[in-house]
């Protein structure tokens, strides 16, 4: 168990006419090795929730335990928490500030007290993890890189802190399809090779379906669905009720099944759909 959240609530402008419950009694457990897709509308509380996990926002009530440390403890070291829980914000390239790619990525680990060879190793390995070539790029200014590269520098800056839990808030926002696929591939690699637990906040059902093994759906400050990915997309009507969709391919399979065809309807990718339809067609041919 990596994170345990108990009865967490956060209220904006308490005791004023503008009072708003951004988080409403959240209970959640995140285990090591989870790849969680966090979905919900703008204003559903997703971003507020993830900003609580590394102690950047402080709850109105409730508790959060990260890797055995109660983060609201008086003695809790916030730097240690922020090292364990890495948070990549939306459009992270907007926070780059150093003269070189190397210095920018080194900012986090330096704040943790790393120096010399160890620091260099950290920067180098995190650049490799996000697919940036260390030797050609380390001395370049981050501001003259392409949009996709800038974003990867920013993500590397968080990975360089070696978090146990990595949270990415809309990491593909504004990228074109190939840029999006590259970033998602790297996130998958981080998960599979480095064993980092991941929370992916996203609007794209297709992306979440492809990558995550568990999905949290937030609505009006509450977690309304917390289940395995395949199970979640079976609840299409529940999702549609709050205005969220399911991947087009899942939707197609459900539609196809509803016409009286005996196929699985918990399909998540085009590849799976192809297998299932081929099986179905061959069955029918033989019958």
């Amino acid at each position, binding site marked *: 168990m990596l994170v345990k959240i108990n009865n967490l609530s956060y209220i904006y402008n308490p005791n004023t006419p503008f009072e708003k419950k951004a988080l409403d009694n959240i209970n959640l457990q995140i285990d090591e090795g989870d790849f969680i897709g966090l979905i919900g509308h703008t204003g559903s509380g997703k971003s507020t929730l993830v*900003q609580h996990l*590394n102690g*950047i926002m402080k709850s109105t009530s409730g508790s959060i335990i990260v890797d055995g440390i109660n983060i609201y403890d008086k003695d809790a070291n916030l*730097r240690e928490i*922020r*090292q364990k829980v*890495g*948070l990549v*914000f939306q459009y*992270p390239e*907007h*926070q*780059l*500030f150093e003269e070189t790619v190397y210095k920018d990525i080194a*900012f*986090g680990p330096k*704040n*943790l007290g790393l120096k010399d060879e160890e620091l260099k190793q950290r920067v180098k390995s995190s650049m490799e993890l996000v697919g940036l070539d260390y030797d050609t790029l380390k001395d370049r200014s981050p*501001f003259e890189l392409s949009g996709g590269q800038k974003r990867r520098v920013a993500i590397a*800056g*968080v990975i360089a*802190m070696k978090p146990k839990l990595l949270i990415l808030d809309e990491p593909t926002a504004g990228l074109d399809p190939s840029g999006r696929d590259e970033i998602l591939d790297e996130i998958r690699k981080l998960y599979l090779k480095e064993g980092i637990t991941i929370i992916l906040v996203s609007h794209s059902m297709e992306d979440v379906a492809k990558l995550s093994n568990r999905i949290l759906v937030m609505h009006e400050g509450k977690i309304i669905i917390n289940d395995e990915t395949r199970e979640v997309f079976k609840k299409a009507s529940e999702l549609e009720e709050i205005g969220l969709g399911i991947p087009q391919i899942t939707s197609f399979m459900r539609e196809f099944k509803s016409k009286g065809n005996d196929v699985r309807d918990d399909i998540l990718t085009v590849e799976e759909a192809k297998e299932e339809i081929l099986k179905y067609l061959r069955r029918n041919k033989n019958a």
Partner: protein
Amino acid sequence: MLRDITIGQYFPGDTIIHKLDPRVKIIIIGLFIASLFFINSFYPYILILLFIGIVIKIAKLPIKFILKGLKPLYFIILITLFINIFMTKGEVLFTIGPLTVTKEGISMAVFMALRLVFLITGTSLLTLTTSPIALTDGIEKLLSPFKIIGLPAHELAMMMTIALRFIPTLLEETDKIMKAQMARGADFESGNILNRAKNLVPLLVPLFINAFRRADELATAMEARCYRGGDNRTRLNELKLKNYDIAILLSQIAFFGFIISTRYI
């Protein structure tokens, strides 16, 4: 903290003070400020207080809101009090260590502090009852005669509008970048002044870069919407002086004229 600042904030309403022509309001507040610097005794302050009170009453402004506007300036008001109490020579009342307190000092301190409070309150009366757009329109119109001597009246007003438009956006952005750097272990809260200033670099550099990017995009968007400076520009809401605007302006000129003249009586 940044959200507590009420100076420059608009308190929407539908009163005659709100509807008064912004040019008239700017001139009246100009007179108000000028008269504060002419006043040399306590008595005219009663009239000033009366003026503030009546405006607050008619414009239906909550007193709390106005007091909140003074809050960020407590420190400056305290310094004013402090300096005047100890720096004014005169009849010594008592001494604390090397500091002497005089009767004139106390009187001067209260006088100066009141002037400051009135100055702030008066100015906030203008901004609380005038929308930023009306305010910039008013300034533009009032300054336009000075165009002949090369004063860029329209450009100044446009700059003010854009600044007002982007303040909330930039505040939000500051908050976001701050959080993002804190997530990477940045510390904005501890250390001595020198360290703190140094720690601001990861906040200020991205903020400036983003502001330049925004400015660049905004300029392109304005160009695409046919913006070419103030010449031949029309306005959705043109300012027109009505009779009651003129009446109020004249009455206030007389009122503040009287206050100013008290200095010479």
